[in-house]
């Protein structure tokens, strides 16, 4: 085992941003490998700037390195310039900590958060010098694992990976380590690879695709069945019961070079039961598990002191829902030494209460606030179960502009189930009315509207819905452009419908899609989530070359009886709950948050014998709280502006 650093060092003067490849972050570790230790290479299949801040990867990095029987290092996809030099010099994929070759590790585990990175996974495995198809690997090759949100439909990658982890990784990485340690002790001899995979398949939360047989009738799946009786028919996700037991990362990595989200991140809760029907993250991470407020506070203060950051982001799927959020924030900003610190809430709930919180903490840079109404009409918001009333939105926006914000950003989806042109045009209407509210406060007030095409995801009520074609999405975006063109206060941005189409292929594809992914990769299609590299035509060519019908995979509505490619994998949600929720959606029936109302028995708690961990049994104050009905009395937080003496108050 020898460091590749000196070979890499001579290449770095010839590439862009060489600091991507040096490691050396504050918080990075240089673990000592040994025969008694299982070594993990935690890999993010995108650039360093995008991958470094990933919290899931950092959590596992620390948990594994704390174990006496494991070591973990990190790797990121090298940008094309370095990749070309690595290939010509024969330099393999490497870790950034000890700069070891990827093949020096027992496992290479990828974190997948988006479908368009799939070709990068193949590229990284190939750069490591390992066969991309799992069937062609040698016994002693590292095991290729994947985890992260995309693994709730891992089938498009089934032929390329050895194992898949479903759900929270905190506990299961230890169990996998123990199985691999045993294999390592016994010398990883010839013919033992399938054996270790079979043992791994018995670890709850671990799915080994090669141990399942898929049979088809024409395009339809007839059955997915385990090849052996000791392999489970259905793989359940892992869920940690109490986030308070896992105060990670304890030493968040502080990079030496610029990355996205370059600040302290503290996860305040995991899971979300707002029940937005389009949102896979919310569905697959149930139930809600809050971190104890005291632990949140100590993670903030220790983290700021340790890192020297001046900004902390409180992360979750809907941070304003954290019990006692205003108190936590008040305590943070009043902590001695934190007087220069700004707090970011990545996801604002749409109501004036939330804006009141934001006003307390966003003392600096009061430039833009973001809200996500997601759909343009109340009717459609009932379909998607995002029960924000127009009043909620207008009060939130009024509150924002009146407290000095000049720009409001609104996120919407288009191509949602049952969407009609009036629903779509409702987006333009809402935006223009928000801009009017803004102009009453500030002549330069503006609204930025960001529209993304909807991609149905597995394990959600919309998994049966046929995605809009890119032509249809393009038509809707064109309609919105026409409707907003003359209003200079409204700026429209949109996601490329062609990229939405390709995401749709991988999102609900089955194993046969793997051939197209490999085709795209073999024809140079990497970094597909980067617009300068995205190659729509290559994907169409790949689908045609592999005899795969895009219409069938992407645009077709599924039926209740159909066997879906991920039916043997469970996020805890009962299929009949999801089907009922899909029918409710079509009937425009909303569903309240089960945190504060009786359980619907979706399965996420009831199936695993766990429950919500929330400090307060009553919904937070303000707005209609996702019920569409005004909650009385209205406890609006008085908008106290805590501006430092040195800073000027924004003129409103």
């Amino acid at each position, binding site marked *: 085992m020898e460091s590749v650093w000196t070979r890499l060092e001579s290449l770095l*003067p010839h590439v862009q941003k*060489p*600091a991507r490849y*040096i490691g*050396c972050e504050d918080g990075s570790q240089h673990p000592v490998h040994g025969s008694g230790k299982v070594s993990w290479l935690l890999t993010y299949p995108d650039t360093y700037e995008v991958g470094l801040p990933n919290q899931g990867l950092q959590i596992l990095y620390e948990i594994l390195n704390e174990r006496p029987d494991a070591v973990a290092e990190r790797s990121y996809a090298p940008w094309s310039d370095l990749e070309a030099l690595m290939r010509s010099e024969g330099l393999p994929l490497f870790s950034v900590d000890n700069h070891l070759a990827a093949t020096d590790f027992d496992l290479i585990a990828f974190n997948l958060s988006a479908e368009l990175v799939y070709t990068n996974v193949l590229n990284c495995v190939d750069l490591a010098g390992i066969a991309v198809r799992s069937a062609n690997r040698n016994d002693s090759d590292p095991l290729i694992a994947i985890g992260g949100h995309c693994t709730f439909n891992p089938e498009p990658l089934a032929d390329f990976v050895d194992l898949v982890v479903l759900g929270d990784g905190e506990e299961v990485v230890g169990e996998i380590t123990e199985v691999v340690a045993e294999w390592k002790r016994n010398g990883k001899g010839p013919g033992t690879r399938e054996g270790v995979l079979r043992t791994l398949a018995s670890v709850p939360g671990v799915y080994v695709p090669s141990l399942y047989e898929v049979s088809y009738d024409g395009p339809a799946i007839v059955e997915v069945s385990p090849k052996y009786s000791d392999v489970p028919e259905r793989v359940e996700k892992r869920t940690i019961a109490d986030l308070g037991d896992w105060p990670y990362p304890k030493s968040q990595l502080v990079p*030496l070079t610029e990355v996205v989200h370059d600040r302290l991140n503290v996860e305040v809760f995991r899971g979300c039961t707002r029940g937005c029907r389009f949102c896979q993250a919310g569905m697959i991470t149930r139930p809600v598990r809050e971190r104890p407020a005291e632990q949140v506070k100590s993670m903030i203060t220790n983290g700021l002191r*340790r890192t020297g950051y001046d900004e902390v982001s409180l992360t979750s799927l809907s941070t304003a829902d954290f019990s006692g959020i205003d108190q936590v924030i008040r305590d943070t900003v009043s902590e001695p030494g934190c007087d220069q610190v700004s707090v970011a809430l990545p996801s604002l709930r749409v109501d004036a209460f939330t804006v009141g919180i934001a006003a307390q903490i966003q*003392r600096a840079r009061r430039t833009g606030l973001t809200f996500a109404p997601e759909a343009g009409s109340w009717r459609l918001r009932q379909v998607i179960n995002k029960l924000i009333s127009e009043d909620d939105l207008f009060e939130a926006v009024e509150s924002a502009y009146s407290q000095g914000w000049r720009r409001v950003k609104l996120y919407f989806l288009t191509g949602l189930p049952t969407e009609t042109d009036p629903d779509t045009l409702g987006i333009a209407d809402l935006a223009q009315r928000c801009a009017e509210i803004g102009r009453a406060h500030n002549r330069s007030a503006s609204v930025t509207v960001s529209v993304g095409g909807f991609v149905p995801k597995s394990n959600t009520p919309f998994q049966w819905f046929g995605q809009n074609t890119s032509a249809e999405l393009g038509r809707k975006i064109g309609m919105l452009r026409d409707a907003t063109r003359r209003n200079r206060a409204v700026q429209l941005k949109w996601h490329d419908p062609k990229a939405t189409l390709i995401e749709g292929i991988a999102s609900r594809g089955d194993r046969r899609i793997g051939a197209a992914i490999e085709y795209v990769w073999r024809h140079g299609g990497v970094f597909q989530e980067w617009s300068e590299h995205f190659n729509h035509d290559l994907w169409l060519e790949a689908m045609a070359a592999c005899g795969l019908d895009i219409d069938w995979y992407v645009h077709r509505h599924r039926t209740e009886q159909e066997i879906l490619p991920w039916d043997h994998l469970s996020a805890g949600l009962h299929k009949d709950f999801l089907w009922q929720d899909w029918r409710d959606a079509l009937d425009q029936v909303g569903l309240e948050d089960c945190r504060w109302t009786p359980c619907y028995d979706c399965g996420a708690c009831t199936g695993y014998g766990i429950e919500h961990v929330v400090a307060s049994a009553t919904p937070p104050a303000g707005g209609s709280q996702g019920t569409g009905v005004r909650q009385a009395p209205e406890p609006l937080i008085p908008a106290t502006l805590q501006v430092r003496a040195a*800073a*000027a108050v924004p003129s409103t």
Partner: protein
Amino acid sequence: MRIRLKFTKFGKVRFTSHRDVARMWERAVRRSGLPMAYSEGFNPRPRLSFGLALSTCHESQSEYLDIDIDPERADQIDMAEILSVLTQHLPDGLAAVGAEVITRKTPSLQQAVTSCTWQIDVIETDEETAAGAVARALAADELVVTRQRKGKEVTDDLRPQLIGIDILGPTEDGVRIVAELGTKPRSIRPSELLSVFEPPLRERRVTRLNQWITDDLGERREPIVCRSVASAAVGAT
């Protein structure tokens, strides 16, 4: 109150940019608890001013920056401790090696520094070839480089900026050169010097050894007089 600091940059961290180094200093100063002065406005930042930028991939044993201290808390500063406290909060490869209190009237580093001494290791050549190239450069009346500026080609004569140059001897895979290059009206980069040689030379590793301030009388001195400079080995990884 303003303090001028001298620091070194060696090893892996040399692959970070000038901007990256500025951010590392900002965090280190914040973590060290030094009573800094902050800029005014919505987004207060500690007031740090850096000298001449060092190119990404180059090492240095003499970088400088000036930091402003909050005048009301200036008595909290312990000049005996400041170097070790700061170094402790900087990443491996960056170390504070000198500090001096300066006045607000002290000209800024950008204005004051007039030349730099560089150690340049070149490869794919031998001592004789390099010596020939250096001798030809010294004998030339002008050394013209062409560069792009705002989309137009501009030519500069480097000869007046080549203050001194010497061959130190062979290295494992080439030759070590030391050169003093002027910074006025603009800083000449070692790579530009290598490009004007006949034949051009290829750099392997470049280290800034000194920055100099030459006054009107021709006296040359460094931006601060260090009481104790940590003996950083040049070229160490």
